[in-house]
């Protein structure tokens, strides 16, 4: 697990990449169930899955994900969240359209997610064993974030962000070209950064 600090939000962000994830379906069901559970038990259930579970194959780089995280923290601080929590907002911010269901279906955890990027925003005053909590939810191998480059599905990213006909990449037809990957990474990062003013 890796941690960075946003001093201006007085928040820490913990990120962990899990490969060979086996319980995507179970995680999704747990989140849905926790969202409507009541009382103290409900709070505990929600706390146990209080993360953004992002399908890692749609993430081009740590920067791509962190840009979504920054914009979500900003929306939270300005009380302009489009979704209910800062964690669901991260998933929404990644999606090129404003459709929440589509965002969760594409970028969130689903039945066949085999790799997950798990994000947890913690206000600096809170003291939690985040890594332990992550491991309790996700059945998979925790690996360094630098492994992300072996996970990214560039053609699926291009499809969802509708980049295949953009002039910036039309000159680079080979889907495995690292130059093409770099351009796509820049495009999706920039898009996520400006989503709030995109239309």
């Amino acid at each position: 697990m890796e941690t960075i600090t946003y001093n201006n939000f007085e928040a820490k962000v913990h990120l962990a990449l899990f490969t060979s994830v086996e319980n995507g379906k179970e995680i999704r069901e747990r989140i849905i169930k926790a969202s409507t559970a009541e009382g103290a038990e409900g709070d505990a259930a929600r706390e146990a899955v209080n993360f953004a579970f992002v399908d890692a194959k749609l993430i081009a780089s740590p920067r791509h994900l962190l840009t979504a995280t920054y914009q979500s923290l900003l929306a939270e601080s300005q009380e302009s969240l489009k979704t209910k929590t800062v964690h669901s907002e991260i998933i929404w911010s990644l999606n090129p359209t404003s459709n929440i269901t589509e965002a969760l279906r594409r970028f969130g955890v689903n039945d066949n997610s085999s790799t997950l990027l798990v994000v947890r925003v913690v206000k600096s005053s809170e003291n939690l064993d985040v890594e332990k909590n992550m491991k309790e939810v996700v059945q998979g191998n925790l690996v360094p974030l630098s492994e992300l480059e072996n996970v990214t599905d560039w053609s699926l990213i291009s499809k969802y962000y509708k980049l295949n006909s953009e002039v910036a990449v039309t000159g680079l037809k080979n889907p495995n070209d690292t130059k093409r990957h770099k351009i796509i990474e820049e495009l999706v990062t920039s898009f996520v950064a400006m989503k709030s003013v995109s239309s």
Partner: protein
Amino acid sequence: MTPTVALLESSTLIRQGAEAKVYKSYLYDGQISGSDARGEPILLKYRFNKQYRHPTLNSTLTRQRIAQETRSLMKCLRSGVHVPGLRMVDAQEGVIGIEWIEGESVRVLLGAEDEETEGTGDTSDLPDLEQLEHDPLAKFNTTSSHVMRLIGTEIAKMHAADVIHGDLTTSNMMLRQRSDEGTEVLIDFGLSYVSALAEDKAVDLYVLERAFASTHPDSEPLFQTVLDAYSKINSKEWKAVGRKLDEVRLRGRKRSMVG
């Protein structure tokens, strides 16, 4: 204090203009495996509150201009024009964060004085002018005519995407410092807009031509090299844009609205 104000306070002021302040900043502390500590530096452009404007008008205008600037940048990125990538946008506070370009403005490279060396803020980051004066281009291992071709190419790609820069000067172009070859990067899309009209594209080029004439008297003939490169890349539109450019040269930037 809002998060964006806190971010600005932790940043280094580089430039101040009438419209905005420019800072160098970092979005976070800490290290992600496989990338640099503190991440990459970014440039923050802060369209500060104008006390002379009504607050409501001020926030509407700021919001509009931020949206316009970021949309133009995004359109350029999608079209393969070399412009800074976007890193954060806070339309409410009037701040955009863009990619930090390590390099030098074409204005300085062509031997003119830096626009605001006497400006406010910290200028210690700026390279020593005297040291550069001998031949600033040597550091980039390039020639002025090569730089002109790069400029023509980028403007042509931008115009092919129907983005009009609105303020093309040699100060708003940078040569990126790279080990291999230099890349020319267009910056400051604060006055940009989208238009497909040959007239608007011609005026964009005319503004640059005038800027060349006034800032770089010796390199004025080089502007032809810019146009040559432009006509090659944007060959489809060059006939119309070139003809309009001749018209604009005769009458000036503003169209006559008489009759």
